[in-house]
């Protein structure tokens, strides 16, 4: 759970050194406009606020877990990070260079790759495995023979014998094998950052563990940085150095994985953790931790977006939007309870001492 990443292997592309964050995300916003209703002046411009001002930094060599319930903007964030969707506003700074400005998009994409959830849908059914992996390098000017050679090396690297698998089609492979192929494809461009969007969620548990081990080995050997998006809190806790919690398009809490899981600060993080089923029958969850569905992202609640479901909500929570503040080193949270002079009346309990930090 160390906050400082391991020293990365020497990489000529490493511009800012280990202290420079690999990726700085600043105030990323993406609103999806809905079909307009009404005519003329009565037309309303409604939009789903999928990602609404997300900011965070990603350190070199770390694994940042991203958690949150369905519809909180995890996958949109992943697509924005990969620039498959363009943001409405906000910027990405990769190793000190602004993406799309100093760092051209094409070059950014070479250094950032993504592994999707659906291992079958993310492979072209009409292409052999080797062609799928060799496509990226070929795009960047590697000759076909070299690209295929690279594909075979990568297949071996992810534990698939090239002689047996290179000439096959995706439907002839199992889910775990296909996800290995997807990882090999992501590695083919020699990226520094890999976004894993629910990449192991569709695999069964034993295969999931194998793929997680493979990812850990590759990270170690190649000095990779991961953004690990998942709804599976156990897996996130296992793989992540730091964890980022999202709610309704916003970041509500960031912290070192162990600290965050041991002592959640934001009430939503707490509720999320309590929703984890325990394997211990003596620690059976008795009541539903969070009532109802998340509110409508078209018209999010005023003030703190979580106040409609929050057990600690007070009147002020509906009026005032909390700022995202660092409450202790490496730990930030967006909740009025931790904001000085926010107007939130704290009950005098010893567990709330973080308020004074």
């Amino acid at each position: 759970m160390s906050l400082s990443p391991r020293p990365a292997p020497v990489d000529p592309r490493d511009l800012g050194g280990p202290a420079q964050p690999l990726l700085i995300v600043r105030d990323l916003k993406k609103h999806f406009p809905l079909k307009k209703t009404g005519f003329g002046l009565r037309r309303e411009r409604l939009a789903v606020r999928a990602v609404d001002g997300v900011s965070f930094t990603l350190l070199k060599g770390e694994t940042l877990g991203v958690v949150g319930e369905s519809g909180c903007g995890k996958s949109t964030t992943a697509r924005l990070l990969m620039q498959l969707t363009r943001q409405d506003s906000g910027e990405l700074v990769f190793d000190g260079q602004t993406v799309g400005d100093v760092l051209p998009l094409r070059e950014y994409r070479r250094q950032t790759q993504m592994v999707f959830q659906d291992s079958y849908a993310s492979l072209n059914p009409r292409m052999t495995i080797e062609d799928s992996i060799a496509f990226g390098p070929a795009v960047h000017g590697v000759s076909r023979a070299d690209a295929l050679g690279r594909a075979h090396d990568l297949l071996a690297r992810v534990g698939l014998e090239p002689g047996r698998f290179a000439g096959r089609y995706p439907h002839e492979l199992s889910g775990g094998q296909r996800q290995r192929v997807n990882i090999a494809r992501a590695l083919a461009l020699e990226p520094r950052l890999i976004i894993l969007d629910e990449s192991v969620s569709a695999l069964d548990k034993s295969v999931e563990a194998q793929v997680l081990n493979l990812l850990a080995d590759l990270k170690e050997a190649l000095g990779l940085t991961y953004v690990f998006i998942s709804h599976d809190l156990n897996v996130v806790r296992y793989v992540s150095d730091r964890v980022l919690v999202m709610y309704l398009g916003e970041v509500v809490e960031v912290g070192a994985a162990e600290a965050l899981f041991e002592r959640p600060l934001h009430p939503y993080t707490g509720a999320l953790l309590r929703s984890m089923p325990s394997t211990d029958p003596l620690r059976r969850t008795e009541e539903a931790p969070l009532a109802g569905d998340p509110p409508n992202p078209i018209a999010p609640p005023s003030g703190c977006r979580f106040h409609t479901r929050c057990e600690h909500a007070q009147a002020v929570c509906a009026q005032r939007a909390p700022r995202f503040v660092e409450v202790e080193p490496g730990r930030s949270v967006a909740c009025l309870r931790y904001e000085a002079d926010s107007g939130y009346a704290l009950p005098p309990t010893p567990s709330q001492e973080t308020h004074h930090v």
Partner: protein
Amino acid sequence: MTAAIHTSVTPAAPGVVRSRSHLANVLHRLVRNPLAMVSAGIILLLILMAVFAPWIMPHDPFATSMLKRLKPIGTPGLPLGGDELGRDLLSRLILGARLSLFMGIAPVILAFILGGTLGIIAGYAGGWLNTVIMRCIDVLYAFPSVLLAIALSGALGAGITNALVSLTIVFVPQIARIAESVTTAVRRSDYVDAARASGASALLIVRKQVLGNVIGPIFVYATSLISVSMILASGLSFLGLGVKPPEPEWGLMLNTLRTAIYSQPWVAALPGLLIFITSVSFNMLADGLRSAMEVKQ
């Protein structure tokens, strides 16, 4: 790190096990479909007949004779009888295969290229370009195809070229709509996203990733249009808008022989029978192709 991945760039090993490609699989299943194979055989025979028509025609298809007018099937020297001008019907049917097949296949090929391109562009681009292309196509699509073909041919005037142009225009919207819908579905797939993430240009993604997945369904649909095209072309000729006499073409022959429907019904029905057999064969082949491609893997 670069060195870490690729300590040795091995050349593509020759000992790689290769699976059968999709196309090979489709053909493999197609040849096991008896109906499709019979249809393909009939189509092959018709094409051979058209290609070698000058050598297999027993008589001059343009030579008229008042003595041989409307003779029944089986008359000595006239195996399939004589038409209303005493020309040998067998020779005319054989030579007519050329124009009839041409008018069935050529507009579909042209529309496949044009409509396929438009549909793939609209489907992959999405947004306003999709709206512009698809709304223009909807205007044409709103007309019934027979009406549109007749209106266009009527406006352009009679003749083979004009019939070809008008039939192509009739089929472009139909093929473009299919192409657009399959391309839209493929564009949203994760593997296209993955290709975009690799930094490939739109043109390269369409060529390498999209085309192979959309061309099959578009091709199957186009195949099923060949019979429609033949019937429409025959209809245009029947109305005097397509092929001009004395050129033999099955639709035109059906028209000129219709006055003899009471005196020699069998002779008069022969061109129609050929149109029927040909269009059914193309439809059966298209159906066979469709089911050979639709197998879930």
